């Protein structure tokens, strides 16, 4: 039944196995590259403001989605925020139970006009509340690779 039922090859028809060897490369784009580099090198979170219309973007962008002006300058935000909503993931991608459930939240990021960040919240499921202040927890600098998982998650303060 759906996600928790283990289906392994539901086939009575004759078939041959398809195995496509795909190694995906996900590029960040110019704006996000700047964003992740700043986390990796300096542990900083970058937002940007449109020089023409003043719209604020987080993560930083290279052009304004409202007036299409070029955006070249970024500014730092603390990376703190509040829990906007969350879910508790009990099952893994293959439908098997996780040892410990993961709390995944939408964090409304301070100083960004309401941008949200999707990431883990480091807390027991029954201790998470909407509206609680959170701060980011980064990996040690030597372990950071310039991607989303340089952030370990957010901790309630």
């Amino acid at each position: 039944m759906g996600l928790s039922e283990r289906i392994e090859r539901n086939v009575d028809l004759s078939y041959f196995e398809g195995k496509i060897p795909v190694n995906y490369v996900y590029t960040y784009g110019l704006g996000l590259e700047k964003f992740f580099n700043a986390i990796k090198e300096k542990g900083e979170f970058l937002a940007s403001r449109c020089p023409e219309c003043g719209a604020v973007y987080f993560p930083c962008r290279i052009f304004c989605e409202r007036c299409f002006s070029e955006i070249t300058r970024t500014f730092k935000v603390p990376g703190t925020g509040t829990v906007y909503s969350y879910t508790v993931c009990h099952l893994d991608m293959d439908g098997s139970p996780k040892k410990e459930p993961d709390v995944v939240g939408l964090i409304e990021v301070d100083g960004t006009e309401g941008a949200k960040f999707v990431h883990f919240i480091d807390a027991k499921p029954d201790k998470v509340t909407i509206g609680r202040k959170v701060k980011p927890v980064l990996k040690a600098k030597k372990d950071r690779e310039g991607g989303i998982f340089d952030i370990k998650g957010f901790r309630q303060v």
Partner: protein
Amino acid sequence: MPEKRKLGRGVAIVGAGMSKFGMFADKDSKDLFAEAFKELLSSVDKGFDPERIEAMWIGNFSNDFFVHQSHWGPIISDLLGMAPIASTRTEGACAASTLAFRDGVMSIASGLYDVVLVGGVEEMSKCTTVEVTEGLALATSPYEGAAAFTFPGVFGALATAYFDKYGASREALMNVTIKSHNNAPLNPKAQFNQTIAEIMQAKIKRAEEKGRPVPSWSDEKDALRDSRFNPPVAWPMCLYDCCPISDGASCMLLVAEDMAGEFTDKPVYLAGMGQGSGRGLHAAPSLTSFEANKQAAAEAYGMSGLEPKDIQFSEVHDCFSIAELIHTEDLGFFGPGEAFEAVADGATKLDGPMPINTSGGLKCKGHPVGATGVSQLIEVWKQLRGDAGKRQIPGRDLHVGGAQNLGGTGGTCTFTILERR
């Protein structure tokens, strides 16, 4: 201005068919579409020659990923012996076949064609669970999937936000699930055909036979609260809040309005249709409403000149139970934050004032993603013609019904209003 949008000429639905939905180890996408088309042929009251079909649109989300085959337009036209007419695949995640329907409508409205076939197909059960979950997650926003936010997680976060804002609880979701499972046994095409009460009885019987501890649930909600019966997936989404993995196909025959009488004396007409797009959750203005729904609804109501109170019943995209509550509010059937109480009062039951998902919904009918949109329209078509069998809405003179379809995490939403004149 959405209210200004009108069709160049009217469109009627004069035939439709769908395969049974479910997990079929012994059928592939072509077999399923053939099953749907065969039913369509016998559904045209005055009969018709398939040679009259001039073009076709086929919705499919990700058979490329699920069964290693893309390019479903010509595969289906070839299957039906209709090559070399134009056949186009449409993709809009779980809204793929409503986009096929819309393209078919627009081709007739523009005067390009008079008779077209629209439909959809998806075959998901040949993959493992991890592959299906990965495949579906391709339709989340780039910011969501990367951080473990696959579909159950996204809708779990929507439910948490809904509960927080309106004071609802998991009870509200249980009411949706119980209602859908009550409709499903009345639909012979549905993947699941048991009510929650019947599933409970079956589990109790099995426990007795195997000499295991016999559950002592007092009622359906008591069972749904039991994590052995209804394990959490992405809390507050539990197993019975989530639609299944499915295979299936659906199709419809559309003709220019003034030709409908050649095919049937009971045509159903398109009254209004709309489509919207939305941002990822990280940028969405609200987690208790889909902006794409609002756009789709404004277009459909504007085109039809109808209002929410004129819609007598509707199919909505309940991929997860919480979605049904949000959609019925976005479409204006209930006020913001009011759907969960309306469902608790029985408003959306088959014999309630606003029946929702008489088919059993995605939860029970099944959700072969590319076939879902047209299958929703088929349910509305059947209800309006009085052909819905045991699940025919009782004691009502039905004239207007709606179907709302959602793709991804709200990236695409459509609303379509059909009418009998």
